[in-house]
C-alpha cells in the first residue's frame, strides 16, 4: 500500500512535467553558421580566447571551449565580456590535445561576424557566427534532429545545454546522411535548458528541426500508432497523420521526408505534406549523328515542374532529373522484340546506378528513337498506373520544345492513371476535353495555348461533377458526334488533376509492386533499430525489375481496378499479349 501510494504520488508529481515536455518541430529555415574551431592546447598553459570586432544587426557572441576525453565536456565558457556583447575566457588547459572553440549567437537574430583571438593573436577574421537556441523541456531518451531541407543541404550541428552556459551534449553527423542526431541522456525541465542548432563553417542551406519523445516507451502500448518513427504527439505538429506512415500519399514514407536518408536524401527535396513526384530521364545518344540524339531540351525540368506547381497550387510537386546518356538503339520495346532493345535491360543498367536508393521512388523516362517497331511513329508508350515511360519522337526531325514538353507530360499522365479519355480516333479528337491527354492538345497545349495541363476546362456537366468518369461514357461517346442533347458542353475530365494517382495499387500503402517496400520492410531498412536507437537508412537497396510472374499479377490487379472504374480495355488501356504490361500507346 505504501509503495502504491508512493508511486501514485510520483505520477502526480511527474504529470505536469510530462505534459510540458512534448515534442517540437521547427520548419525549414536558415539557422546560421557557428564558429567551430579545432585548436591544439598544451597542458598547464594559460589561454585566453576572445571575440572582437563584432558586426551585425545586434551581434552577441557566447564562447565555449570543449574537450573530448572519451566524451565531450566543457572546459570554459564566456558570454558577455566585461559587460559587452563580445565574449572572453581565460583558463589553464588541463591536458594537452585538441580542443574545440565554439562561438554562437546568444539568441535568434543576434548573429553577425566576429574575429577570434587566442592570447591576443588573431586566429580568425570576421567569421560569420549564428545558431538559434530553442527553449523547451525534454526527457531522457528524447531525440533531436536537424535534417537538411535544401538540395545538397548544409552540414548542421546540434547542442543541448542545461542553461546558457552549461554544456550537456552535442552531435555533428550521427543521423541519416550525416545530419545531427542527439539522444538526450538526461531530463531537463527547470526552464533554463535549450537546444542550439547551427551550421558547420562554410556550409550553406536550410534544415528543419525535430524534437520527439522516446518511441515505444511504455510497457502496454507504444506512442507511434503507424510505426513510422514519428510519435503520435509529433505528427500533428508537422501536419502529418498519426495513422498513416505516408501522410501525403506520395508513396514516400514520412520518415524519409522528415528525417532524410543516406545518398539522395528525400528530406532535401520532398515535403511530408505535399505529394512529391520524382522522374529520372535518360536519353539515347547517337554515336555519330548529333541530330538523331534524343536528348530532351534543358528547360524541360523547370517547365514540367511549373505546370505541376501552377495547376495543383503546390500540392503535387514534380522533381524531374535529366540524368545520363544511353547507348543508341533504333527501337526500344517493353520486353524483347525484333530489331529492338529491351527497355528493362537498359533500365537495369542505367536507372539511378549511382543512387540506387532512388529506385523505389522514381519513375523512369527513356527518351528514345522509336518504340515497338522500326515503322512505328508513335510519340510514346507508357505504363498506365506504373512507373515506366518511353518518349519516342524518332519521326520528328527536330521536335520543338512544345512537342517535347507536351509529350513528356502526356506520357507521365499515363503513369498517373490518366488515359486519352476516348480521344483515340484520328481526326475526331474532342475540342471539349481540354487536356494534354487529348491528342488535340498534346503538342499545341490546352486550348492551343502552349500550356500543357491535365485539366484546363471548367465546363463539366453535372454528372461528371459528382460521379466517376464511367457515367460520362455516353457523354464522351457523344464527342464523336457531339450533338447529343446535354453533351455539347460536357468535359468529363474536369478535375483530372485531383485524380492523379500516386498510390498505383490503390490499396492504401506505398507498394505498387514496382519495388517499393511495405511498411514493415521499410522499417527494417533502418539499422540497427529505429526504436530509440540511431536510425540510419541503408542506401544500397538492390533493385530488380519484378519477375514475369509478379508483373502478370500486377497487371491483372491493375486491369481489374481499371475495369471496375469503367475503363474500357482496348480503348482506354491495353494489355500486352504476354500479360506483363498494362499500357497506353500514343499515336
Amino acid at each position, binding site marked *: 500500500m505504501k509503495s502504491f501510494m508512493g508511486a501514485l504520488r510520483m505520477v502526480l508529481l511527474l504529470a505536469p512535467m510530462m505534459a510540458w515536455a512534448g515534442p517540437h518541430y521547427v520548419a525549414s529555415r536558415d539557422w*546560421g*553558421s557557428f564558429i567551430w*574551431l*579545432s*585548436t*591544439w592546447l598544451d597542458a598547464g598553459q594559460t589561454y585566453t580566447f576572445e571575440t572582437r570586432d563584432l558586426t*551585425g*544587426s*545586434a551581434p*552577441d557572441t557566447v564562447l565555449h571551449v570543449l574537450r573530448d576525453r572519451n566524451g565531450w565536456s566543457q572546459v570554459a565558457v564566456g*558570454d*558577455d565580456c*566585461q*559587460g559587452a556583447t563580445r565574449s572572453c575566457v581565460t583558463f589553464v588547459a588541463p591536458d594537452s590535445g*585538441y580542443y574545440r572553440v565554439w562561438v554562437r549567437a*546568444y*539568441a*535568434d*537574430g*543576434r*548573429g*553577425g*561576424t566576429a574575429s577570434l583571438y587566442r592570447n591576443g593573436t588573431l*586566429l*580568425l*577574421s*570576421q*567569421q*560569420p557566427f*549564428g545558431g538559434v537556441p530553442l*527553449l523547451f523541456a525534454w526527457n531522457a531518451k528524447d531525440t533531436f534532429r536537424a535534417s537538411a531541407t535544401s538540395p545538397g543541404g*548544409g*552540414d548542421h550541428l546540434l547542442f543541448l545545454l542545461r*542553461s*546558457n*552556459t552549461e554544456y550537456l551534449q552535442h552531435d555533428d553527423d550521427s543521423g541519416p546522411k550525416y545530419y545531427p542526431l542527439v539522444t538526450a541522456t538526461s531530463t531537463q525541465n527547470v*526552464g*533554463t535548458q535549450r537546444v542550439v542548432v547551427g551550421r*558547420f*563553417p*562554410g*556550409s*550553406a542551406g536550410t534544415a528543419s528541426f525535430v524534437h520527439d519523445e522516446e518511441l515505444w516507451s511504455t510497457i502496454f502500448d507504444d506512442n507511434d500508432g503507424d510505426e513510422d518513427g514519428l510519435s503520435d504527439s509529433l505528427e500533428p505538429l508537422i501536419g502529418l497523420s498519426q495513422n498513416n506512415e505516408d501522410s501525403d500519399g506520395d508513396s514516400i514514407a514520412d520518415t524519409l521526408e522528415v528525417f532524410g536518408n543516406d545518398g539522395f536524401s528525400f528530406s532535401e527535396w520532398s515535403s511530408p505534406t505535399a505529394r512529391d513526384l520524382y522522374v529520372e530521364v535518360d536519353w539515347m545518344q547517337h554515336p555519330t549523328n548529333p541530330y538523331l540524339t534524343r536528348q530532351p531540351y534543358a528547360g524541360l525540368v523547370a517547365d514540367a515542374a511549373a505546370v505541376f506547381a501552377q495547376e495543383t497550387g503546390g500540392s503535387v510537386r514534380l522533381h524531374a532529373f535529366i540524368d545520363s546518356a544511353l547507348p543508341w538503339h533504333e527501337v526500344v520495346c517493353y520486353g524483347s522484340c525484333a530489331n529492338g532493345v529491351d527497355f528493362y535491360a537498359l533500365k537495369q543498367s542505367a536507372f539511378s546506378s549511382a543512387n540506387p536508393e532512388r529506385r523505389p521512388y522514381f519513375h523512369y523516362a527513356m527518351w528514345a528513337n522509336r518504340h515497338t517497331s522500326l515503322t512505328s511513329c508513335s510519340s510514346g508508350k507508357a505504363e498506365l498506373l506504373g512507373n515506366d515511360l518511353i518518349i519516342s519522337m524518332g519521326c520528328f526531325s527536330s521536335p520543338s520544345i512544345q512537342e517535347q514538353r507536351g509529350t513528356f507530360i502526356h506520357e507521365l499522365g499515363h503513369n498517373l492513371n490518366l488515359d486519352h479519355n476516348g480521344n483515340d480516333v484520328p481526326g475526331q479528337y474532342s475540342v471539349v476535353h481540354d487536356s494534354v491527354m487529348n491528342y488535340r492538345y498534346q503538342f499545341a497545349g490546352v486550348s492551343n495555348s502552349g500550356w500543357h495541363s491535365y485539366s484546363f476546362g471548367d465546363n463539366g456537366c453535372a454528372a461528371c461533377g459528382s460521379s466517376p468518369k464511367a457515367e460520362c461514357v455516353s457523354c464522351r461517346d457523344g464527342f464523336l458526334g457531339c450533338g447529343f442533347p446535354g453533351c455539347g458542353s460536357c468535359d468529363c475530365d474536369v478535375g483530372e488533376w485531383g485524380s492523379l494517382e500516386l498510390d498505383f495499387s490503390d490499396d492504401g500503402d506505398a507498394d505498387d509492386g514496382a519495388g517499393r517496400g511495405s511498411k514493415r520492410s521499410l522499417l527494417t531498412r533502418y539499422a540497427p533499430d529505429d526504436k530509440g536507437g540511431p536510425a540510419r537508412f541503408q542506401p544500397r537497396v538492390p533493385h530488380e525489375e519484378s519477375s514475369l510472374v509478379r508483373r502478370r499479377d500486377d497487371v491483372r490487379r491493375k486491369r481489374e481496378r481499371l475495369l471496375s472504374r469503367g475503363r474500357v480495355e482496348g480503348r482506354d488501356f491495353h494489355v500486352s499479349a504476354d500479360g506483363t504490361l498494362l499500357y497506353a500507346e500514343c499515336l
Partner: protein
Amino acid sequence: MRARGDKVGVGSVVLGVVLLAAGIPLLVPRHMSREDAAANPATVHQEPVEVARPGDPRKDSPEPVLHIEQVQGPDGLTVQVARSTPATSSLTRFAKDALVPLTPDEEALLREEPSDDLAALVTRMERAFQDASPETRGRQEQRYLAALNLVAKLSAPPPEDARARDEDARYQRALAEEQVKWRTLSPGERDRAQETFKEWFFQGEQKR
C-alpha cells in the same frame, strides 16, 4: 622592293631565333627543364607542377608562379608548356571576380586544394590538422585557419535583421535602467547580475 622584303624576312627569322633562344630559359627555369628531361623522358602525363619564378618577389603583390604542364602534341610529341596563370577552381575565379583580397596563405590554399565546396575544404584542412605530427602541426594549423578565413571572405554577409535590432534597442534601454541599481555591486557581482537579467529579458522576448 622585293630584295628589301627578303631582307626584312631574313632579319625577322634571325631575330625570332635569337628571341626564342633567349626566351626559352626565361620562360622555363633551367633546373626544371633539366631535371624533368633527365627524370623521365617517356612520361606523357604529369600533374601540374608549380614553380617559383626566379628573382625576388614583390612585396606589394602575391608571389606569381609559373605553371608547367606536359602537353601531348601530334605524332606522340610531348612538350612542356609554361603558363603564368594556373588552372583555377571556380572559387578562385569567384574570389578574383569579386575583388576579395586574399592573403598569400589563402591564395596558396586555393591553388593547392582546388575545391568548389567550402565546407568540404574546411573539413579536409581540419582533418589534416588533427592528423598532423608535432612537427607539421603548425603548418597544418596555418592552412586550416586559412581555409576558415577564406570561408568567411567568400560567404554572403549575414542578412540585416530589423527585429533583432529593435529587440536589442529595448534590451539596451532596460539594461541601462537596471545597471543603475548595480552601482554598489562588485564587478563580479555586476557580471552575474547582468547575466541573470539578460536571461530573464530574452526569455521574456521569446514569449512575446
